[in-house]
């Protein structure tokens, strides 16, 4: 009889649908399909898809590769902590370390060119958050995530940490230059 009582008709599943309900179900279903197919569509025709290329790694392995890049391609150092600013060759593998509570090193990229950005965390989980672009990627220890990035605008960007990583979490911020 009502929603808090057993259905009045024993065979309630044979009751005909109201047309308002039927029409809405069809419309909603069509919309659900549109939303579903937008994702594969964007993988084919869109230019912003997160790569799933991932490798296992250790802090030592990754630090070694990052250090090699820093040794070869540092163009200057910034801040009192002397954080190296690296200008890697176009199209090369670029390594960015997330650790308590710093992104290391800083990067200088060229507009319109692509780079293979490798991300990992040395200790806890961190969150790569590129501002003001607002691209956000989870960074997980033990896994090396390779994302091909193509900066489309010149400028000075910030990289924040947006995964809670302990008491210094809110001080974890770095810079990225696109020229």
């Amino acid at each position, binding site marked *: *009889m*009502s*929603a*808090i*009582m*057993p*259905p*009045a*008709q*024993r065979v309630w599943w044979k009751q*005909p649908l*109201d*047309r*308002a*309900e039927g029409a*809405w*179900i069809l*419309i*909603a*279903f069509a*919309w*659900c399909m549109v*939303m579903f197919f937008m*994702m*594969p569509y*964007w993988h084919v025709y*869109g*230019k*912003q*898809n*997160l790569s*799933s290329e*991932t490798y296992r790694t250790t802090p030592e392995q990754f630090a070694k590769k990052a250090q090699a890049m820093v040794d070869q391609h540092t163009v200057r150092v910034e801040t009192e902590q002397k954080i190296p600013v690296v200008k890697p060759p176009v199209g090369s593998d670029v390594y960015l370390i997330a650790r308590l509570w710093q992104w290391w090193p800083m990067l200088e990229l060229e507009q319109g060119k*692509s780079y293979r950005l490798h991300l990992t965390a040395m200790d806890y989980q961190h*969150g790569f*958050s590129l501002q*003001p672009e*607002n*691209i*956000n*990627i*989870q960074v*997980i*220890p*033990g*896994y090396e995530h390779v*994302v*091909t990035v*193509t900066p*489309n605008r010149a400028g000075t960007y*910030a990289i*924040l940490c*947006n*995964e*809670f990583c302990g*008491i210094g*979490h*809110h001080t974890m911020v*770095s*810079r990225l230059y696109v020229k």
Partner: protein
Amino acid sequence: MATTALFRACPRTGLQFHRSAETLIKANAVAAVLALLLGGVLALLILLTRWQAVHLVGANDFYLILTAHGLDMLVVWIIFFEIAILYFCSSTLLKTRLATPRLAWLGFALMVIGTLTFNAAIFSGQATVMMTSYVPMPAHPGFYLGLILFAVGALIGCFVFLGTLIVARNEKTYEGSIPLVTFGALTACIIAVFTIASGAIILIPTFLWSIGYVKHIDPIMYRTIWWAFGHSSQQINVSAHIAVWYAIAAIVFGAKPMSERVSRSAFFLYILFLQLASAHHLLSDPGLSTEWKVFNTSYAMYLAVLASMIHGLTVPGAIEVAQREKGYTRGLFEWIRRAPWGNPVFSGMFISLVGFGFLGGISGVMMGTEQLNMLIHNTIYVPGHFHATVVIGTTLAFMALTYFLIPTLFQREMINPGLAKWQPYLFGFGMGVFTLAMMGAGTLGVPRRHWDITFAGNPLAYEFPGTAWLMLGVMGVSGVVAVIGGALYLYITVGSLLWGKRLPGGGYSTERSVLRMPVASAMTGHGHAGFAAPGTFVFALIFLTAFVLYYFVNWKYLSTVWGLS
């Protein structure tokens, strides 16, 4: 056994309470409200800290409080209340005795002990890991242990509910199928069993890791299984509060479902697909394939979203039909204009429904889209979204139900009904603006779980745009309004229990009663292939338009950011 069970029939509604069930429902509801009180105080402190212009508490305290707030609200308040709902929907609605009340009390005790245990770990400062406690960040073993105890207690509650359904069936306390509301509660219960099992599968090894018996917990595995617990528990809430919507529509209007078949099928879709939502939190993660993300995040091609869109039509649709049958037939919208907007049971439920759909639903689907997720992952947009679903949706629906339960279950007259009239509006609109402001700030990149977006003292500090600051200010003001609304709820409910005038409750006997609510005079048989709810249909189209526009605006925005592949 059954013949000696004692029942009390509420003289106002005819609802029938089995004595053991009644005490358990009360105990669980009271525990829930106490958790809401603690969580609410913490909410205010967090709010006044993230409102950067006020920036009240220090970083250490902020992260500690945020951890406690998440668990005490999202887990303790909501699950205690849901256990109360499960007992109500089984024992009371099926007019049957509650199965194994002693086990139910054991479950209750475990939940209380669990709550105290993990809160002790958090407030001792040794478990500031956020409610997600992502490995390898360690917490005190008491933190995981408390959660496990709580989960086991809740699981016992679920099985007591299932047992009660079986008792009712065996003792033939009802004819035909269980009521739709009970079916919704059953959906919530099935999802809860899955959810709690996932929680156990990940939290037990993590507990062993915290005391040194397990060497390594893989962080991706942890995230995948933890979120099968963390997100699915929100699906329990969705099922439970939608059951509450249907219940309130029935209680206030005598509304019956437009079609049992449609509403039950929609709940059934939840059972099949809603648990896949673990993926929503992993879309911007490494290590998972694109195909896995796309399939899971869309709940298998959005069939669970379809279910929510159906409930979004059928709940107000049922109200419209009931109102039209009472004669409010003028135009498309007389039925809604003439609804009892001064009755907090109705207004709370309706604000919950609209807020859940427009704010929580649309934002949830946007952020659950594989590529779009990158635009908001871990920003303050995320808490913006889930405050719309869990606070406006679930909490407000539970608040509305409480106003019905005070006279019926607790047999007290509500104190200050004039204030109660305003409470859902203050709370609902406060939260509505609060969540919108958070989503706005998140769209501008403001991170969640972050103590200081000025990055004070760091030479590399990033300066957020002025609009982001404005959004945080709006969030602060509207958040305070919502907290006042929440405080009113606590004042009215606790006050009514303490000082409210006692109402005659009806004596206990072994007799069964007949329902005396508006439903008794309810109509029979609609769903006659007409077009019974045109007003609701128009609302639904407005909703769809907002949905489509917002969805594609975000794709447009995505197309302008850096190339990623």
